[in-house]
């Protein structure tokens, strides 16, 4: 059970948050122009990395804001937390 530093509220217990999967998957602006394969790539394909992973988290039992987290999935160490729309502070 780790601690997440919510960019709006500060450090809180993991139980206050919910995970939203991989970050930086942009919803296509014109889905109708995509082939089945291209749409499926957006819809289904997610990385499941052992190591540094860029993730979306929601402070669901707090401010309800979404933000991004850079987490090492092998030891749960969080390397960075940043707001939606911001560039990752560490190299992706």
């Amino acid at each position: 059970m780790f601690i997440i530093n919510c960019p709006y509220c500060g450090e809180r217990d993991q139980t206050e948050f919910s995970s939203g999967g991989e970050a930086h998957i942009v919803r296509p602006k014109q889905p109708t122009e995509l082939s089945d394969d291209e749409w499926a790539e957006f819809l289904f394909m997610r990385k499941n990395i052992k190591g540094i992973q860029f993730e979306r988290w929601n402070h669901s039992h707090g401010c309800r804001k979404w933000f991004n987290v850079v987490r090492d999935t092998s030891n749960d160490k969080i390397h960075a937390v940043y707001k939606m729309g911001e560039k990752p502070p560490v190299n992706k």
Partner: protein
Amino acid sequence: MTQELRINNKKFIDQTNRLSFKFNGEKLYGYKGDTLASALLANNIHLVGRSFKYHRPRGIMTCGSEEPNAIVQIGNDPSLTDPNVRATEIELYEGLEAFSQNCWPNVKFDIGGINNLLSPLLPAGFYYKTFMWPASFWEKYEFFIRHSAGLGKSPTKPDPDIYDHKYYHCDVLVVGGGISGIMAAKLSAGNNNETLLLDDKNILGGTTIYQNNDCFTIDDNHTNYWLEKEIKNIKKIKNLTIKTRTSLAAYHGYNYLLAKENITDHLSPDERKGKIRQRLWKIRAKKVIIATGAIERPLIFNNNDRPGIMLSSAIKKFIDFYGVKTGKEISLFTNNDSAYETAISLKKSGVNIVSIIDIRDESSSKIVKEVEKHNIKIYWKHTIVNTEGYRRISFIEIMQLSDDGSGVIGKKIKLKTDCLGISGGWTPMVHLFTQSGGKLKFRSDDNVFLPDKNKTPSDQISIGSCNGDFDIKDIILNSNKYVKTFLGIENSPYDNIKVESSKEEKKKNIWLLPSDKPIGKTKPFLDFQNDSTAKDVKLALREGFKSIEHVKRYTTTGMGTDQGKLSNMHALGIIAETTGTNMGELGTTTFRPPYTPLTFGAIVGRNVGEFFDHTRKTAMHNWHVQNKAQFENVGQWKRAWYYPKNGESMYDAVQRESKAARESVGILDASTLGKIDIQGTDASEFLNRVYTNAWSKLAIGKCRYGLMLNEDGMVYDDGVTTRLGENHYIMTTTTGGAANVLSKLEDYLQTEWPELDVYLTTVTDHFSTISICGPNSKKILSKVIPDLDISDQNFPHMSFKNSKINGIKCRVMRISFTGEHSYEINIQSNYAKNVWEMCMNAGKDYNITPYGTETMHLLRAEKGFIITGQDTDGTMTPSDLQMDWIIGKKKFDFIGKRSLYRSDTIRDDRKQLVGLLTDDPKEILEEGAQIVEKLDQKPVEMLGHVTSSYFSPNLNKSIALAVMKSGKKLKGKKFFVPMENKNINVTVTDTVFFDKENKRLNA
């Protein structure tokens, strides 16, 4: 009471406070301060239980949580009895009742003991190998296996005890109150750190607190004297909290730890009343110091499991701490110096030591020399090849070891002994360290796995013997050094401490000691609880198991309630030796929490019964209760399910309610439906994107039904949304989906479309909803809100009015989920019950009938309206539901649009929603029942299943909704619904059964 085994010991045992207890029905006595184990031993009882597989007699082996044998059932009250309690841990109290486990008819004569004679037929994996065939016999085997297996008996009635949870935050947590833990706590708390010190025993001080030996001194005093003073001193430190009887169960990431505090388990039943039994501590520590110590290893030799064979360190604690002689003629068997400390303790207390058998060639350390002064016979380079004695050890047979240690030579010597102490060295307790993610390294000098300093998660250290320091001098000097560095302390009161000890010089280790008999004829036990022997491990290796994890599971070594605290290292050693691998490379099995078993009570704490989950009740809940409603759980909500009158069955009540709603007027509490207030200049555009249909042109004051998809095109939620103003909507969602829909909408707003000016607020609890439905609903509404013009011209179907009831603002929608002319009154929840009662009064003359969710479901099924989550299951597209009309094909985009023409979603053999009628109109299908076409097919093809099924009182026949492969094409076709004892004939129909022309909406 056998007083001859007690020596005077006033420090830890209160000999003025005699306690009576019962063991297997026999009344015995002990003293305050005893454990059950020490009290039994003082009564000369070693035989406590039977082993798991061979039912061999087993005795008390240790003095702590690593105990594999002395596992007892406490009490026989059906709600309070406690199985698998370690006699070495439970403190004696007046009236304690304990029973042996795993034996029948009793521990002295156990029928299951026949397994011991059959043991050559019961090798490792016996159950896997034997009960495989024939497969159909498994159920018969299972009965016998289940009856012969298992340890204690679970309570059969609910647990009346109270358990508690506590959150705790501190700067430094010290785990373990032995000498290094005490030092760490003093250094930490003395340097302005809020410190918590935990120990699982009732008294601090670990093994040093009773170490009263001239060979070991601190500042020229015996170590126990020095430590007693330290403990007295730390108790005065302000920012140090000390919790005894509290065992650390789990060490998770980010220094989150769970500990179980035993509050009343040591008290007599009378003293427990009204108190919390156990408390689970949820600790967040900035820094953690692990000082969990080490456990002595047994030695593995032939018949090493007889009652009376104990760890040498346990014998020492029983004599030095509890004042109990574990025998009158004690022998010691060792490969290191620790047993010599026991020898001196025994000698001081006047116990006769038969001999010491040491597998080493010699040792000339200080403590060995001290023992030699007492004229105790030491057999150097000898091993025990056999033991005798069924219910208690009586003889040992020893022989000289060959030079390479692989065999025995010379003449066999037989020695009479009634207790044997064994010492195979020490195993650091690294469980917590590895649970936290730390990696171990192997030290080959003494075959121990230790915390690897380079692979330790930050903000923790291990000190003392759990870090591989076994000599008191190393423990003190290193603990001081490491804690100073860890906490950034410059000067410590321990900097100039003077420690004297006996340095161990010689080490020798043989994992499996040889016997004069071939291994096949011996019983060298590794795991005492699960009866796995060195033979079993070797067999597993011969059969091809290589991974330590596999060998563990195949032989069950280390899988008992003690989790292999004693056996794992030997199993590893024997595997390494047999396969010629380095132990360090082999690694250990994974240490998983909890370190010692937790009660379910401690885990759930107060979250039992009504506190298990939140309960949400509507504003009208009490009215429903008063009117005898039966309730249904929908998420956390309690919803009125049906209102039985005069002992009506559910079926009869629902039939009556359904008829009344269509014939006159029914009233439903619809407050639980999710309500989301949507405002902002882009509200219409937002709805366009989240619903499949178009919203921009919806006029103010109008309502529209919307279907929400997931991005994969599957139906997610539905409900009616009303346009309250130019930039203001109120969306309703399903009851169960409310929270998730809000989260999903917030997600899109914050992440995909942050440019939209939209604000979402949940108002589910703020507004209550009263739904009035039926041909007379109009009359009720006009009585409740006489000022409102409810003519069809002014207030048509799918529209909304702001209004007031007795001056209180309300929102009235004319919408319908039943197909009847109906209204929904939304009013601030504080007033809802009053308005409900007003409606009931207004409807008196019209037989207004309150109906619950079951009738609502029936009525909507008559109309073929879906319930998301009942008729859909996350795999249904709008088209699958025959709802193509709701897809805004011209819309540029909406959530899930692109997925509606993926190759998979346009297949025409997808499961699609259909209506089903039974050929016999009285026959009601079961929801979930499968639909098939051919009965003689093998395997029979399942074409779909029933999703909703009711007997419609308004049609006087059974109706059902179902999903079927290519359902749209099947109208009029006949199928079977096979049930356990019959096949029901059904015909596929349209999904709308009642009022196909929707005439009643405007009736």
